[in-house]
């Protein structure tokens, strides 16, 4: 490490693995009534983000002041060639409302990449992704990276209403087999999903299962994975302050054998072994 003072905060951090990147906003458009797609120009260090990792975003000032804490967002797309990263986010509370005000040309401070992403074994033939709501944003880059390694992707997307479904085009473009279920016609109910999954893997067996976005689906998949002798991972959420293992506010309980252990979502996760997670 050099002893010379870094001339700016960014420079001081850039040589390290986790950077505080000042990214220019390229686009921040509504995808549907609830979600927005935020595209940023990002420096090389940010482009190393792997599926399941996240960035910690410093929200701009909103209507009720500047949100003090950063907001964690999974990386949704990494386009290394174009030097871009993207997020898909739901407008929810103060922080995401403030993010929604960003205009092209504005600068967003994104710290990352952070956390431990998904495991991919190149020897696998096919993986199953089961996502609910904005959980799709977290699973999408996994599908892209798996497909690039020649691994087949089967995806089940669960949404409240058909008009809120996202990423189907992205998934189909990489050759994934995509199933959509929703609350309106009851197809997203646990029993229905379970039957559907059985049919899906009967038609095309999978090596591993990945999920994000629903405690109900997590429980279902724990049964499913145990019954079929599969392995799997889940990406979990928890409120964060530091995003860097320091504050212990983001812990969740995990079952490890007979013990229950606290782990930090920002550090040991956000991706965890599917069977150890507690919904």
């Amino acid at each position, binding site marked *: 490490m050099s002893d010379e*003072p870094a001339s700016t905060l960014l420079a001081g951090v850039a040589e390290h693995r986790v950077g*505080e990147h000042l990214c220019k906003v390229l686009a921040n458009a509504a995808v549907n009534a609830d979600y927005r797609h935020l595209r940023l120009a990002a420096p090389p260090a940010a482009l190393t983000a792997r599926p399941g990792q996240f960035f910690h975003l410093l929200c701009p000032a909103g209507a009720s002041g*500047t949100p*003090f804490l950063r907001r964690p967002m999974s990386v949704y797309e990494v386009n290394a060639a174009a030097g871009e990263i993207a997020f898909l986010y739901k407008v929810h509370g103060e922080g995401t409302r403030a993010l929604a005000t960003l205009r092209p040309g504005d600068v967003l401070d994104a710290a990352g990449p952070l956390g431990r992403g998904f495991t991919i074994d190149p020897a696998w033939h096919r993986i199953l992704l089961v996502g609910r709501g904005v959980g799709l944003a977290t699973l999408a880059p996994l599908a892209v990276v798996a497909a690039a390694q020649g691994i087949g992707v089967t995806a089940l997307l669960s949404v409240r209403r058909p008009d809120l479904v996202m990423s189907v085009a992205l998934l189909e473009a990489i050759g994934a087999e995509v199933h959509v279920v929703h609350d309106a016609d009851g197809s997203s109910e646990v029993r229905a999903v379970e039957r559907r999954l059985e049919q899906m893997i009967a038609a095309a067996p999978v090596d591993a299962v990945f999920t994000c976005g629903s405690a109900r689906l997590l429980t279902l998949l724990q049964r499913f994975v145990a019954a079929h002798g599969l392995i799997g991972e889940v990406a979990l959420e928890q*409120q964060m*302050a530091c995003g*860097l293992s320091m504050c*212990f506010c983001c812990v969740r309980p995990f079952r490890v054998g007979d013990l229950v252990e*606290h782990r930090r979502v920002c550090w040991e996760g956000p991706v965890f072994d599917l069977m150890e997670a507690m919904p």
Partner: protein
Amino acid sequence: MTDLSVTIGSLRLANPVMPASGTFSEALADAIDLDRLGALVAKTVMPEIRQGNALPRVAETPMGMLNSIGIPCKGPEAFIRDAIPAFKRFHPPFVASISAGTVTAFAHLARQVGEGGADVVEANISCPNLEADGHAFAVSAAATAHVTKALRAATDGPLWVKLSPNAPNIAEVALAAEAEGADAVVVANTILGMAIDIDHRRAKLGAGMGGLSGPAIKPIVLRMAYQCARALRIPVIGCGGIASAEDALEFLIAGCRAVQVGTATFRHPGAMIHILDDLDTWCRARGIERIDDLIGTLEPFEAPRLPPGEDLAAE
């Protein structure tokens, strides 16, 4: 380059900027060069294995945050075996923050971490989360004297005592720590606060109340640091809402010998490096060669008032 070095008792620090306990771990090495810091301060360790408080553990407030983490802890043995060596890979002096529910356990722990390799023992006698409504050693000068005396007897190394802003008269508590042999006081821990989720009509923190930190509290803590620095002969280390070199300079000019940076690192992982660089730039722009020359240079004041109306009549 400005000479940023400062002396805290027998300890010479390369510069006055260090992390605050509980807002730092060696993982920050992923983001900044830890060897540039004045010292490294670990999360408080306690004698027993603990899980910490109920979730949620943090709540956002205007220019600040509440926390009720509650000191999750794997116990002193794990700390000495795993954490101390991890921190000692870096050059800055290593400060072990300790706390305990009784004076005996406190003293025992001080001896353990001292022998385990800590360069400094920082006694966190002020954590407001451990007792109902924020009671702690640090809210009483007598209790502070009592625990400081036991800690002083238990360890030969540098002993810092970290005070609580919830104390009725913090300078009095600081004097008690000084009288019983503390080498420095840290001013201060978080201020007890609360936030309510109005939709669910429950406290935003699982523990009900928690400690307020961040820029919001800076004016209050700066006042306390000034009151302590004015009253004490031992060094005062300022801590509360420091997020920039300008903030750090306020504390130094008020009489602090060093500063700790907590919550600012959550917003900007590089905050401490930024502060160091800007301290150097600020001093150089003004021809200040040693930061030490700035410490305690606040122009004295004695609440001057405009004279009452009648006296002005003839001006």
